[in-house]
């Protein structure tokens, strides 16, 4: 069943209206040092932001 929905559009960064005061302090990618209980115990959580 393929659904056709109304609301959520794919957005662009501009839609977020990030202010000019947003500071890009690093161009580097932080390295996560800690692994929280989510990933150490589950690894398959629907939320990819949780770890």
């Amino acid at each position, binding site marked *: *069943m393929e659904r056709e929905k109304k609301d959520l559009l*794919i957005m662009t960064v501009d839609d977020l209206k990030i202010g000019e005061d947003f500071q890009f302090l690093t161009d580097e990618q932080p390295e996560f040092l800690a692994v929280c209980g989510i990933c150490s115990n589950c690894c*398959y959580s629907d*939320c*990819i*932001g949780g770890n």
Partner: protein
Amino acid sequence: MIKLCQWDITGECNLNCSYCREKRTEKLTTLNLGQIFSIIDQFVDMEVRMVNIAGGEPLIFKELPKVLSYLRPKVETLGLTTNATLVSNKNVNIIKDFFDGVQVSLDGGNAKIHDSVRGVGTFKKTVSAIELMVKRGINVMTMLTITRQNKHDIANYIKLASSLGLKSAYLRRVIPSGNSRNTEPLSSSELFSVFKIAHLIGRKLNMHVGSADYFSQIYFDKNEKIKVEKNMQDHPGKVLSGCSIGIDAFYVAQNGQVLFCPYLPVFCGDMTKEHLSSIWEKSRMFKINRNLRMNIEGKCSKCKYLMCCGGCPAYAFLTEGKITASDAGCWVNEQHP
């Protein structure tokens, strides 16, 4: 090396849950096998360690066995997120052979509540499927999405997961996108009460209670709190954990587009047109998230756990209209009885 990819292999689903994030204007496109294999090859190029197959409902996708055969040898860990209503004796061996773990959506401790969220008859099918998978030795965990319909049934949910022989039960708040876009989110006090009950019952039943809402882990899980505080002490000023998109994780939608996350579908790139390495390097959205912690406003900016939590950027945007806003669902710096 990238730690995790969540991949919605299809947008099609046999259910239409009341809070589902998948509410989009366009027809949901599913890629052909050639395009899918090309995406997998890009995972290999970027050393993606874990892939979580989600959807839609992944088990509805007819080409799934072929995709899994190609993907499985190329990643360390493979997970499945499913509503489990399509799990049967016919496909349970595929699940056992290919996946390291299965996350099943379970939205209440009884049929009345679960079915009110996910549709009539789904509770019975889901519970039977969990029983079948547990019997076959598959590593199953449940995930409840906290809504107004089920917030009073959390204790029964944990008890049910325990009675099904599971070691872990997870829960997370609903993120107001898709079908739940216009619903009023639960307040931080309401969420506090829900998580408190969940952890109390979990401790009593010797169940691990976890959440994708990381602040609840820090608050209620003593071991997690000790670990986090030690990490902060050892690595002052460093971003240690929290939203990891663009840092060590990313999300691919069913049409091959890399979006910020399932709940905040900000376009980051298209893996059918551009290599993942280029998206990873160039996406402005990823750069924003890599710098977000230093730009967060309000209570999160003053929270001692900023560098290991930072709240959920999608939740902040969808509730406050700003990705730099504090996470309104968090109670950590609030007073509670």
